[in-house]
């Protein structure tokens, strides 16, 4: 497995602006993540971790250097090709849940499947299974407004995993939740990583949450400051 990392960053930089106003969000990152890892990304704001997440999620491309996703150079893909890559291989969970309002949990979870062009019956079956997996089987016809924060985040996780992606990117998934809900979400992510073998990369500010991961990467000033592997991590 080590021969074929899921994602590999090689000398990746990202700069915004030009001239004096130029800002290096990433100053040259080398990083390799293997399938099945659970990685926590930490660091103060402005350290480049969000930029790195955008690049990992194929929402953005490096200014220089190379990002390979399953061996494919993402920098050489068009906008639509990157969209297709996201559609088929990447699931997103956001701090603010980002569910469609006034739309039921089931329809929210179905959304990525619609873009995959799945027929109605399969779509319903998979979405219901995903909601069941996050423990919300009874809430499928509730809209986000009718759900608590923890429940909304679980719907968002169901939406991210319903397509069985290779990579789940979670951007501060517990940032808007109290500690009890946060623990529930972390346990859910751990279970997804363990049981389904989905690689999870998660940004967090909280060391307690990072402890659920098997590897913690810390960013500072656009560079990786430390890269710790925990809990008998085998590689």
């Amino acid at each position, binding site marked *: 497995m080590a021969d074929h990392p899921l994602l590999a960053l090689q000398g990746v930089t990202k700069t915004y602006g030009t001239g004096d106003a130029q800002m290096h969000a990433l100053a040259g990152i080398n990083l390799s993540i293997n399938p099945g890892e659970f990685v926590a990304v930490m660091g103060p704001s402005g350290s480049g971790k969000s930029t790195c997440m955008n690049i990992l999620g194929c929402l953005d491309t490096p200014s220089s250097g190379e990002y390979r996703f399953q061996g494919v150079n993402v920098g050489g893909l068009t906008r639509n090709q990157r*969209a297709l890559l*996201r*559609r088929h291989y990447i699931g997103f969970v956001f701090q603010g849940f*980002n*569910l469609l*309002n*006034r739309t039921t949990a089931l329809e929210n979870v179905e*959304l990525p499947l619609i*873009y995959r062009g799945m027929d109605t019956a399969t779509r319903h079956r998979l979405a219901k299974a995903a909601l069941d997996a996050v423990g919300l089987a009874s809430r499928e016809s509730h809209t986000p407004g009718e759900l608590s924060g923890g429940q909304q985040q679980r719907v968002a996780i169901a939406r991210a995993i319903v397509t069985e992606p290779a990579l789940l990117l979670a951007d501060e998934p517990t940032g808007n939740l109290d500690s009890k809900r946060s623990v529930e979400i972390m346990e859910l992510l751990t279970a997804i990583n363990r049981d389904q073998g989905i690689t999870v990369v998660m940004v967090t500010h909280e060391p307690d949450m990072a402890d659920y991961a098997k590897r913690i990467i810390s960013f500072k000033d656009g560079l990786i400051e430390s890269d710790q592997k925990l809990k008998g991590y085998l590689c």
Partner: protein
Amino acid sequence: MLGNAFLLAFRALRRNAMRSVLTMLGIIIGVAAVIVVVTLGSGATRQVSQQVASLGSNLLMVSVGKRMGPGQVSGAEAFKLADAEALANDVYGLAAVAPVASGSTTAIYANENWSTNVSGTTDAFFSVSNQPVAEGRLFTASEARLGTAVCVIGQTVAAKLFGQQNPLNNRIRLQKLSCEVIGVLKAKGQSTMGTDQDDLVVVPLRTYQRRIAGNQDVNLIKVSVQDGQDTEKVKHEIEGILRTRRHLASTEENNFNVMDMKEIAAMLSSTTQTMTGMLSAVGAVSLLVGGIGIMNIMLVSVTERTREIGIRLAIGALENEVLLQFLVEAVVLSSFGGLIGILLALGTAWGLSGLMQVPFVFQGGIVLTAFLFSAAVGVVFGYFPARKAARLDPIEALRHE
């Protein structure tokens, strides 16, 4: 992909049901306005042509003075019975000639009185002006010649003077003349000019001249031309004969006027059509405004739904899929609005045509055009906002509050 776009668009519209309905309102009103106007307009046009047919076919009206209506030249000498006879004898291709002397007179029966138009004419009048009898009989040629005290009345006069009573064989008083009602004419309704064609009393010409007018004048000669004859040619012949009889020098203008009812009909229906056209243009403008309304709402919607679009793009929606979804939303709004507008318009036009006493004429062409136009409005005015949505940067869009 189109099926998906429809699914996504319908879900999005349902989430904002109220706004969707309000957006459609512009299109609904625009489409309804155009269809109502065109439907009523073509009803009015048909009514005009029906009325023209009811005037009698190939009718020429020969009147004294240069023109009819305002600006009529006064002082021109009236016709005489002999003029009408001359036309009947000398012009080839005439079906009938009816000299008419008429005036406004109060008709009295028992306690009822009614101011109406009394025409003195010959028996030819009824066929020329296409007014058959409903009850009783018409007066005969010999009665007309003799000037007997008989009259035939229109439905309005019958209703005003006699109410539910049978007018036949009763005598009504017209100034000094007391005459027996021998017939009631069939109802004819309003004329093209809006006058009541049933509000009249017809007496023999001689009776009218002697007992009511007290002179030998004839104001109007109604001439019906035989089928297949060139009306224009007949008109010229009539003009020639009358110029000679009225001793007009070649430099003088006609001091009488020959009017072809067909020309008037053509003029009237072209007026109706112009009105319909202008009102349709107003409707079309409101349709356009409705389209701009859709664009406005879609633009607002793109801004408001920036985050949603960001989610879709992050999840893996292609640019074209987002574009198509927003385009379909706009087209669904506009064409559904168009459909409601059509139904509303047909209902309204049906109701109004009853009120305005205009026949209801279903115009499939304009209904189809309005529908296609409303759908096109959606495409045209939906494209810009849709493209704006599709080109959003997912990172920026997700950050949008």
